[in-house]
């Protein structure tokens, strides 16, 4: 008996390819809650095949790090470039993503030591806060990032995305007799030269073609 051959489904669901532009809305929200922070970030990605997107972010951040013994402000611009890989298989013509990504990051910034209190660990001869206002300009930071996140197409061509990232410093300039505690684009630099990031973006896809 002949087995009837299963006819292959010839219907192919196409999805849009194009340039997606957006902004990180978490930074202005964070800035409205935290008087020590301002930040703005534009994001873009471009789909190069079914799974892979070229991605970049540019932004500005200013952050005052208030520590027990020092108060310093970092301020500057940054860029991150890299790739995202979409690991999610969409149904039909849906265009959502669960993605992982890598980035190279570069920040160029100034850091000002506003004030500090020498840690003399003595109440017998207490130390007083010293107003320093020492600025080191043209500092740079280079780092790599590993990202995981999700993107959801909420309205046609309008995407909401959230992601977290783990960052590792490749090289950073420290001010003389001080340390870069925060680098724009990187965030707080921990003792181990690592950091964490968080993004919440809304972006719009300008479709060029469908494949």
């Amino acid at each position, binding site marked *: 008996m002949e087995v009837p051959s299963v006819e292959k489904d010839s219907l192919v669901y196409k999805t849009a390819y194009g340039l997606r532009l957006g902004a990180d809305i*978490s930074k202005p*929200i*964070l800035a409205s*809650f935290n008087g020590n922070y301002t930040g703005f970030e534009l994001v873009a990605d471009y789909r190069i095949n079914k799974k892979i997107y070229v991605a970049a972010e540019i932004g500005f951040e200013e952050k005052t*790090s208030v*520590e*027990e*013994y*020092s108060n310093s402000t970092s301020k500057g611009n940054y860029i991150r470039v890299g790739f995202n890989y979409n690991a999610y298989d969409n149904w039909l013509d849906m265009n959502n993503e669960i993605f992982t990504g890598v980035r190279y990051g570069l920040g160029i910034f100034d850091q000002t030591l506003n004030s*500090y*209190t*020498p*840690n*003399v*660990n*003595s109440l*017998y*001869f207490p*130390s*007083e806060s010293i107003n320093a206002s020492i600025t080191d300009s043209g500092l740079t930071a280079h780092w790599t990032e590993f990202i995981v996140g999700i993107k959801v197409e909420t309205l046609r061509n309008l995407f909401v995305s959230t992601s*977290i990232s783990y960052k590792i410093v490749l090289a950073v300039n420290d001010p003389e*007799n*001080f*340390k870069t*505690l925060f680098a724009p684009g990187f965030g*707080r630099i*921990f*003792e*181990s030269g690592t950091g*964490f990031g*968080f993004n*919440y973006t809304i972006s719009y896809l300008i479709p060029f073609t469908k494949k």
Partner: protein
Amino acid sequence: MILCTAILSGCEKDDFCTKDPVTPKLVLRFYDANDRDQLKKTERLSIWAAGKDTIPTYRSVALDSVAIPLNTTTIETVYHLKINDFDGNLASNETATLTIQYTPEEEFVSRSCGFRVIFNRCSFFVRYKLDSRFYPCSSHNDRQSNHSTCSDIPLVLFSCWFVRLGMLKRKQWKFHQ
């Protein structure tokens, strides 16, 4: 979102300064005047800086080592030390004045520890006051001494004690109490 950030950046080791002390202290170790390798506890030792009250932890104590802070906002600290191994009466107090001069310099340590102060070009001189009582242990009469460093200096401050002086950085000195 803020919670998420807070959790991620919550507990790294640079949140806590674990160095103690960050700024070095001046250490005095007391030895037996007749056996200069033998640590010897003081009798009724009190320490105070010129113009200040006695350091609360060093008020009439019996210790073989003390660590005292230097004033980081000036270039000189003057300490007075009192010892009494006789009867505790004022008349039998033995006192010495230790003057330490230095150039303080602030040095960044870490985010959590901040800046410490290191003492450069440290020098000190000592003045004894040996005329208040009978001194049974030794009969030295060098009443002043000058040194151009503050590290591991031997000196005689009291008739029955020989003292070594150094700077305490981290916990490299072990205290016998």
